[in-house]
């Protein structure tokens, strides 16, 4: 199909879609409408029955816990998919060339950038762990903290170091960690089935609301998701950064 014909069709369909969407959103509840019951009930359940003060975490890991299991498996599948796609055409000799090129590139990185990357990597890891561990209390949690943890890898990369290329072992370790974290989430779901009434039901002590060790399984799931997200993003970033190095040879 020619470009012009395609644009004409899209213009037609786009106008129709725009009209339908505008008509649809006009009738959506306005902010001054009374809040839906789900908002009040979910807040009450998370606060009083799960002892978490971050209601979003309470919903994500309790009311929508099974959805989040699927979400985590999507992330796992994406990391595996990126690895499979990008490793397919890789050969050992080109890998060695790329590793050599990376060594040369390291010498070209300004000392200030290397110092900054090295100095920030540690605090960022601590900050990421803090965000993961406090997900049941304050904004944050496994997904957000995991991304911050993975950002430490980018800083290491900026500092001119290469994590994945010279040997395969760090990436293997990341893969195993990722799989274990994904399995941990599944085990917590099954644990509810064994020790309580149904999958994803809480089966450990809930603790005092507002304390660090509160929320029961929610805290365990936060940590599992944090590790899973950090390792999945590390894997994806490492594979994509490897491509940049392979291309530079």
């Amino acid at each position, binding site marked *: 199909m020619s*470009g012009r014909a*395609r*644009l004409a069709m*899209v213009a037609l369909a*786009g106008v129709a*879609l*725009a009209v339908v*969407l*505008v008509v649809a*959103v*006009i009738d*959506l*509840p*306005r*902010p*001054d409408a009374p*809040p*839906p019951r*789900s*908002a009040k009930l*979910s*807040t009450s359940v*998370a*606060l009083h029955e799960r002892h978490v*003060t*971050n*209601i*979003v975490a*309470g*919903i*994500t890991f309790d*009311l*929508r816990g099974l*959805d*989040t299991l699927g*979400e985590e498996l*999507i*992330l796992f*599948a*994406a*990391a595996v*998919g*990126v690895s499979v*796609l*990008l490793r*397919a*055409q890789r050969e050992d000799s080109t890998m060695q060339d790329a590793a050599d090129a990376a060594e040369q590139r390291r010498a070209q990185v300004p000392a200030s950038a290397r110092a900054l990357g090295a100095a920030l990597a540690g605090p960022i890891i601590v900050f990421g762990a803090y965000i993961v561990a406090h997900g049941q*209390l*304050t*904004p944050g949690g496994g*997904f957000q903290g995991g991304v911050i943890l993975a950002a430490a890898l980018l800083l290491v990369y900026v500092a001119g170091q290469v994590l994945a290329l010279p040997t395969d072992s760090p990436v293997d370790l990341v893969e195993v960690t990722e799989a274990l974290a994904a399995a941990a989430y599944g085990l917590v779901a099954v644990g509810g089935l064994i020790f309580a009434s149904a999958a994803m039901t809480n089966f450990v002590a809930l603790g005092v609301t*507002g304390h660090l060790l509160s929320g029961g399984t929610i805290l365990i799931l936060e940590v599992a998701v944090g590790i899973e*997200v950090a390792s999945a993003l590390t894997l*994806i970033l490492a*594979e*994509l950064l490897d*491509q940049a190095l392979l291309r530079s040879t």
Partner: protein
Amino acid sequence: MSVLPYLVAVWLLLIGIVGIVTSRHLVHLVLCLSVAQSSTYVLFLAIGYRPGGTAPIFADIPAGTPVVDPVVQALTLTDVVVEATVTAVLLALTVQVAKRFGTVDPNELGAMRG
């Protein structure tokens, strides 16, 4: 006034689709998909907004304080994660397309090759 966030969501979806259709570069196409999908974030958060409501975090506010709807915020969190994974896989596919066909212009990728 209160319908404006919904219209922003509609606009983001439409402009993202226009970007996808007219794209001449696969990376640009993937980013346009992100723009289109970000319309759902705006839509969710607009539905959950309450005038005067604060964040649904009860660490330092008494229970019963009016807050915005936490359910749609949890949905948005899921949405963001899925969007990030989709982007990662699509960018990996783009790398493979560039290697195999030597071009990243969608218009030149029309014909199937064995």
